């Protein structure tokens, strides 16, 4: 369900264009050499938000976070894990349909952001699952989400919580995907 697509040049924001331009400047001294940037430097995370969690169970609550992740490098980049300042653990989830019901489970092998493309982490698709949340997250609260990539580099964004009723599919913790 997560939407991945190639970034069209027309769809590039001026900010992304500026980032590209600065990246070009940075790499200009090594023209024609392979893209040596870290995964995190090739990635732009935008539109982050987290679903507000008003009632936290005694053993900790769960909620989810979303974003648009763009990759301006020539190679696929993989988000292999994530963390947050408000959760004990963060899992990378996908929503799958089987037997007429939808179920959340961990993504096998992490979330892939295709070369020169993007991944939209949205309700009903791939997303960050925040687990062991011990304090309520009210609409307007800011939380940090850190994504870790294949090469060990990380990207941290601040996400504002929104009241939202979606992304309530059944969670299937017994399914354990391959952890990278």
């Amino acid at each position: 369900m997560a939407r991945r697509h190639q970034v069209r040049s027309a769809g590039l924001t001026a900010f992304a264009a500026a980032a590209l331009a600065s990246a070009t400047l940075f790499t200009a001294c090594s023209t024609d050499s392979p893209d040596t940037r870290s995964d995190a430097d090739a990635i732009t995370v935008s539109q982050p938000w987290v679903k507000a969690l008003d009632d936290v169970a005694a053993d900790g609550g769960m909620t989810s976070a979303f974003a648009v992740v763009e990759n301006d490098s020539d190679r696929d980049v993989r988000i292999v894990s994530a963390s947050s300042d408000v959760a004990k653990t963060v899992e990378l989830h996908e929503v799958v349909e089987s037997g007429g019901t939808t179920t959340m489970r961990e993504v096998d092998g992490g979330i892939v952001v295709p070369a020169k493309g993007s991944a939209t982490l949205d309700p009903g698709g791939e997303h960050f699952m925040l687990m062991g949340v011990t304090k309520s997250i009210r609409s307007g609260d800011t939380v940090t989400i850190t994504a870790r990539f294949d090469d060990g580099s990380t990207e941290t964004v601040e996400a504002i919580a929104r009241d939202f009723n979606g992304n309530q599919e059944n969670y299937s913790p017994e399914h354990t995907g391959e952890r990278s």
Partner: protein
Amino acid sequence: MTRVSRRTLLTGGIGLAGIGVGAAAVGVGHEVSASTTDAPSTLPFFGEHQSGITTPMQSHVNFIGLDLVDPADHRVLQSILRMWSQDAANLTQGRPGFSDTEPELAGDPSRLSIAVGLGPGAFASPALASRRPGWLTPLPDFAIDRLRPEWGQTDLVVAVACDEPMTLAHTVRLVIAPVRTRTRVRWMQQGFHHGRNLFGQVDGTVQPDARRYDDLVWNDGREQPWMAGGTSLVLRRIAMNMDTWESLDRHGRELSMGRTLDNGAPLTGSHETDDPVFTATSGGIPVIPESSHIARAHRRTDREQFLRRPYSYDVPPSPGSGDTSDSGLIFAAYQRDPVVQYVPVQQRLSDHDALNEWTTPIGSAVYAMLPGPREYLGETLFA
């Protein structure tokens, strides 16, 4: 060096991380592309002033009046304004909002503008109390007012306007849904714009010269530096009694207004934009009656000018009321200082205006409309 600054941009401030950073650029980019013939019908979200104030009027509006659940916590207000900015930066450019569950409804912006204002209650927190503009207080009591509390002052207003009702409804949903536990919707005032009001009168004729917007409409930041580039909104809900208006003949209607119904020309002129001549008489009687609406509303001083954005409303009468209509005007007046510019005119109309026989103000509120955002709405208030 380049690398460091890019990382800082991406992850550094709450502002950049919280806002769709790309959206800012798109808003700016629009101004460049606006001259092309097939330019999308978008209005900029970022800039010195909010769109939707001096913008040529869109055909549909929804003013949303909201109260803060925790007015004493200014950080909540700041977060609400950030979230509205995130979605507005996208929606006004024809792209889905952050938590948009109907992204297919975002593709036709139709000159969408989302303008936000603060009522006196938004300054309840100790951190903001000293930042309330001096004019942001309830209007004086006017004798003609029959104000109903359900249409009264709120802590916040969001004026959503565009030319397409579906786009309007989708946008309103996305304004309210993400903050529904932090705000309470007190009222919505939906209206439509046509060159005339429901009495058939040409409406919104008298406007300040656009070359004087900086002087008459936009705040100069002298009293409250954070307000520079903002303005004030006086929002009045004026019920129009269609049944009693029906009993007035055409000549009486024109005398009550001081203008012809045909083209809105003053009774002393032939075109809508002709200046009325209040001294003209016929048989010793003023051609434009002294009690007419335009004679009473005409400015007595240079400062008594403001921007009028009148929208009509026509909603179903309350079931069982026996009323034939629930119609009227959502009168939105924008000016730098409502006490100096708007109140004297309204006082004269309250003291006497022939139209008062058929019109009744039932709602009234005043707002500080925020300056245009560079990163997010209200950024200068919290700086």
